[in-house]
């Protein structure tokens, strides 16, 4: 198990290194010079050169890469080209919204999907199963902003239980959670629908395995086999999807952030790209890549915790 974790950790470090080079190069070759963008069309050549020097754009690419990466390692992400404030501070502010939102939404999705998936799998082909499958079909087909608008109409405008948008900060924990509730539900519903379907089909595949028949021959009831022998064995595909969903929720919430006026990472990326604030884009993308790779690492560890065949050495 330790050797397994160590090899995974090594591959994590290598992935990060490769990703940082790729991100740097892609952003470097992207058209658009931040200095000329900032100064506008009528910029003087010498002002442009001065600004480029100030932004650190006048040195060679390898040098810029090294500066960027060493800075990042020490927590210094540089200054935003546009706002002249530390990028690390900008990201940290946004992360305090996006990360809790992603975790909240994913937790809701899992809380919905597990009972629904187990319920449907235990009733294969019967009315309950068909009902769950039909609702998940709907959940996948309808976009999350539609849910978002529906939730705002019902719970914010009609019932006035929640505010329609904005984020009060974490000074009051309750207020923070309350503000994130409607967005989290809107984000969670489609994810829950996907997860339910994955869990159900994975459970059904597992229930067709020979060892389920063996378990039944031992005298276990259908329900006992489902819980004791099928659920854990069906977890591998479910974990894979959960990992992918977390990565998506972290940065993919831009539309929901827009609907609820939340200062999240998605909006930050969008703004930075439109303003050619490359240093922010680079940093956020690198952060997201790090999050994805880290989540994959955790999912890998979870696989090994579940399946002894993955952790034993031949």
């Amino acid at each position, binding site marked *: 198990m330790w050797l397994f974790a160590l090899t995974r950790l090594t591959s994590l470090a290598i992935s990060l290194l490769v990703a940082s080079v790729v991100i740097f190069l892609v952003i470097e070759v992207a058209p658009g010079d931040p200095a000329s963008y900032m100064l506008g069309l009528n910029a003087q050549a010498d002002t442009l050169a001065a600004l480029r020097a100030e932004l650190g754009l006048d040195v060679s690419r390898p040098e810029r890469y090294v500066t960027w990466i060493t800075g990042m390692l020490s927590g210094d992400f540089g200054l935003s080209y546009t706002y002249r404030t530390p990028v690390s501070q900008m990201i940290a502010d946004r992360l305090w919204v996006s990360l809790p939102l992603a975790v909240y939404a994913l937790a809701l999705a899992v809380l919905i999907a597990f009972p629904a998936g187990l319920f449907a799998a235990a009733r294969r082909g019967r009315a309950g199963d068909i009902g769950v499958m039909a609702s998940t079909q709907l959940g996948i087909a309808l976009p999350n902003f539609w849910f978002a608008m529906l939730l705002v109409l019902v719970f914010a405008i009609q019932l006035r239980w929640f505010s329609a948008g904005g984020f009060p900060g974490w000074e009051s924990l309750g207020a923070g959670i309350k503000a994130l509730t409607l967005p989290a539900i809107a984000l969670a519903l489609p994810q829950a629908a996907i997860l339910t379907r994955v869990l159900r089909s994975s459970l059904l595949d597992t229930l067709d395995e020979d*060892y389920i028949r063996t378990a039944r*021959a031992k005298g276990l009831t259908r329900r006992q086999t489902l819980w004791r022998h099928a659920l854990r064995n069906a977890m591998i595909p479910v974990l894979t999807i959960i990992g992918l969903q977390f990565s998506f929720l972290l940065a993919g919430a831009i539309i929901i952030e827009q609907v609820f006026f939340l200062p999240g990472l998605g909006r930050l990326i969008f703004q930075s790209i439109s303003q050619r604030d490359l240093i922010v884009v680079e940093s956020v993308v690198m952060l997201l890549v790090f999050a994805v790779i880290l989540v994959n690492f955790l999912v890998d560890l979870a696989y090994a915790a579940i399946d002894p065949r993955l952790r034993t050495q031949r």
Partner: protein
Amino acid sequence: MSLLDIRALGVTIRGIPVLHDLSLSVARGEIVALTGESGSGKSMTALATIGLLPQGAATSGQILLDGTDLLTLDEAQMCARRGNAMGMVFQEPMTALNPLQTIGRQVGETLRLHRAGETSLSSAQADALLAETLARVGLPPDRVPPDRYPHQLSGGQRQRVVIAMAIIRRPALLIADEPTTALDVTTQARILDLLKGLVTDYDMGLLMITHDLAVVARMADRIAVLRKGEIVEQGAARDVFRQAGHPYTRALFDASGHRATLPKVPQRGPLLRVQDVSRDYPMRRTGLFRPRPVFQALKGISFDIRRGERLGLVGESGSGKSTLIRAILGLDPISGGQITLDGRPVRAGDPATRRHMQAVFQDPYSSFNPRHSVARLISEPFHLLEDPPTGAARQAAIAEVMTAVNMSPKDAEKYIHAFSGGQRQRIAIARALIIRPDLILFDEAVSALDVRVRAQILDLIADLSPRYGLAYLFVRHDLSVVRGVTDRVLVMQAGEIVEQGPTGQVLENPAHPYIRELVDAAPRLPEFGAQALTQQGVWDDA
């Protein structure tokens, strides 16, 4: 009174009858074999008894276990009996165990499940019973610790685990559905001995389901022969073997011991030469900086196949047979040595050598693309030719091979799902024949077939060889079938050829102890007639 008494059992699945008026009984201490071809309803009888029929099944009649009709019990009452009053062992030990739980936990689960309410059995006693049962089935905890996972065990060991799960509550009835079909002959012999011993020790009744009449002869006190959901013959094993009354039973016996007639063929120069071939597989490192250990799947194999020769290759699983076949076909690179066909080295993806060499594999169900017509499937090897026939010539070639394998040329229009296992294997042979190869490799090509179909395919293979001037390598994990279709045989063990020679000679007077072990372990089919039986010592008490 019988322990298990099945009376006029009828089973339909979604309205389609699968068992009809089936009556059968098993007494304590008795082994009853239920035999028949695939689809005859053997497994359905077992599943009906244990109450695990597939959805949509309806039953009629009675299944009495110790006087209680199991068909009238509800699910909870059946759960209380499964694993407790009756245990079941399944065919496929590789998949019958939960891969994520230790074997101790899985065997102990049967105990824990049925212990509820019995306060007399303490945890310590339960652990002791678990250890005792594992030891009884040949998995002593000091050698095979109960915290092992299924993937750390061999097929035979896994089957022992399944048996331990079924017997730990000392059920009165044990049902074994093809318990040794997936195992090697020597392992099969040991598992059969274990089952026999358990029946005696615990005074259990054993309902044993098997298609293999040689296994039946070795095990059963009584035999029931099932055909299309009906029992056609039932009686004491001795009587049934002595004089099978029903023509179907007789046909099964004849087919089981079938040997094809091999016409003498002139053997010409060498066709395939395998010279000092080895194949190493790197294994996982044991430490970060230690060199990788190497597993030698083939250790310097050398042999020739002459033109027109019929060569057998025998060995248990893991002996390197499959690696050798892959190497000969050029599917897998070799680590050392040389393989030449007609003087040309065999290389991966080289159509020049593959044109002269084709293969027929074990599974007639999964080796065809279900979306292609048979004509397209069997003409596939044409892509190996530089100038493949087209139009009428192509149709003629397809019709010719279909006729050669005793099928109608019209069948080529159909799709593969329309055919039975035996017909599919004929189609596989047609596919191999169509480009007139010099050599065909039959890799366990008759293993998945019923005995009567197997006999027909063996005859077909024996007949095609002289007709097409064909040499073949017939690969098989057990010896009995090889005897009927080969001139010469090679025996492999642990990546080496341990013996080779004329088939009859090797099987009758094996020099190597391994082959003697294989020959002894293989269950033998008794000849008809009482004299023959006592001579063979099948029933010494007769």
